[in-house]
């Protein structure tokens, strides 16, 4: 657990220094939300109906940026070698990086949810009660993101390979998150979608813990 926290603390410290999340990722997400609002048109009920789907698409795009940034931290050969020499437990690296990514995605996700509430006319109570689901979704995206970020990082075309690899894997999160959010707006079934998110989270955690070391070595 100590190693997990050390790795997470290091990634968050780097983010605090570079401020990529604040000055690049968050503005990109908010601008995309505004464009979505403009594309849907001025009808408030249409906007509210489409808001959950649009929100999760924007969150997924933002997640790709955060994952790409996180996997670039060790992309230079010198940094990669010096980290390899430290021989940190791969499971701790996987969970630590996922924890740092979860913190970042949760902050941006909450800001985007506030933006969605204002720009796409989502009822305030639905936005508030969907927060726990959002946190579950961002935790799942973080675990999957670290895994796919590591796979893509071994390629020289990591920036373009990552979306091709990760977007299909993010589909269950996107669908379950969108359905859960819609259910909270329109009082539909919620449990099955939360359950799906939980299963995806557990699956990615297990696969990541099993494979991350091998991916590092490759």
């Amino acid at each position, binding site marked *: 657990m100590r*190693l997990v926290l*050390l*790795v997470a603390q*290091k990634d968050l*410290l*780097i983010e605090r*220094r*570079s401020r990529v999340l604040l000055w690049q990722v968050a503005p990109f997400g908010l601008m995309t939300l505004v464009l979505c609002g403009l594309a849907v048109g001025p009808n408030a009920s249409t906007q509210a109906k489409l808001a959950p789907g649009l929100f999760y698409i924007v969150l997924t795009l933002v997640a790709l940026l955060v994952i790409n940034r996180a996997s670039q*931290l060790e992309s*230079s*050969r*010198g*940094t990669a*070698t*010096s980290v*390899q*020499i*430290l*021989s*940190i437990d791969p499971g701790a690296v996987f969970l630590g990086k996922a924890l740092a990514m979860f913190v970042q995605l949760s902050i941006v996700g909450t800001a985007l949810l506030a933006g969605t509430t204002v720009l796409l006319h989502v009822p305030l109570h639905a936005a508030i009660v969907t927060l726990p689901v959002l946190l579950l979704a961002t935790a799942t995206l973080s675990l999957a993101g670290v895994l796919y970020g590591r796979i893509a990082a071994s390629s020289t075309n990591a920036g373009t390979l990552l979306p091709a690899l990760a977007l299909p894997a993010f589909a269950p999160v996107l669908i379950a998150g969108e359905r859960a959010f819609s259910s909270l707006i329109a009082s539909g079934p919620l449990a099955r979608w939360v359950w799906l998110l939980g299963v995806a989270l557990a699956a990615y955690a297990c696969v990541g813990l099993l494979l991350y*070391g091998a991916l590092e*070595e490759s």
Partner: protein
Amino acid sequence: MAVASLSDVVVTTGSFPLLSGVNLTLESATTYVITGPNGAGKTSLLRLLAGLEVPSRGRGTVLGFDICSTERRELRRYVGWLGHETSFYPDLSPTENLLFAARTTGADVDLIPSALERVGLTHRAKVSLKLLSAGQQRRLSLAWLLVRRPQLWLLDEPFASLDDEGRDLTSQLIKAAQSSGATVVLTSHGALPAETNATSIVIVGGRIVESAT
């Protein structure tokens, strides 16, 4: 006593051979210098000894760890590495980088201030690494070796990018490692400082063609 023993080791990347049929024994408390033309396999041999390359054929042990198995990950904990690229995290300061490395490996964090002072980085200890020159970044890697106190020092072109003061410092640290009983293996294109008493290993085309004192 042998620190490393390689027998008919082959390392490839794709179908391209980096090292071909390498046989080598390194004795403890000895300094070795690997020389050879560009692309001869000097860095690959050093990376193999660090447990950073996976042999596709042959067998070998370094510090008692089998480099053909997953033991090579454990080996890295006992190896000191100085590469010729920028190491560590560019967005963190020298102190933050060393703290992270020490805490994750269980090294003594109390040694960090004295190590930074020894390599002349005390006045830059809290500056982002990306703002330091290439020579200063290499000094940070030297500081890490002082904190880590490895049994096996693997230094890739340790005198590159260094000014006269940096070269003197590196020579002093190598001598200190020699006198502490560590084994030092370094690569070099040019002449080494005269006082570096080393056994020469010449590598050409991924094969060791000469090994002599």
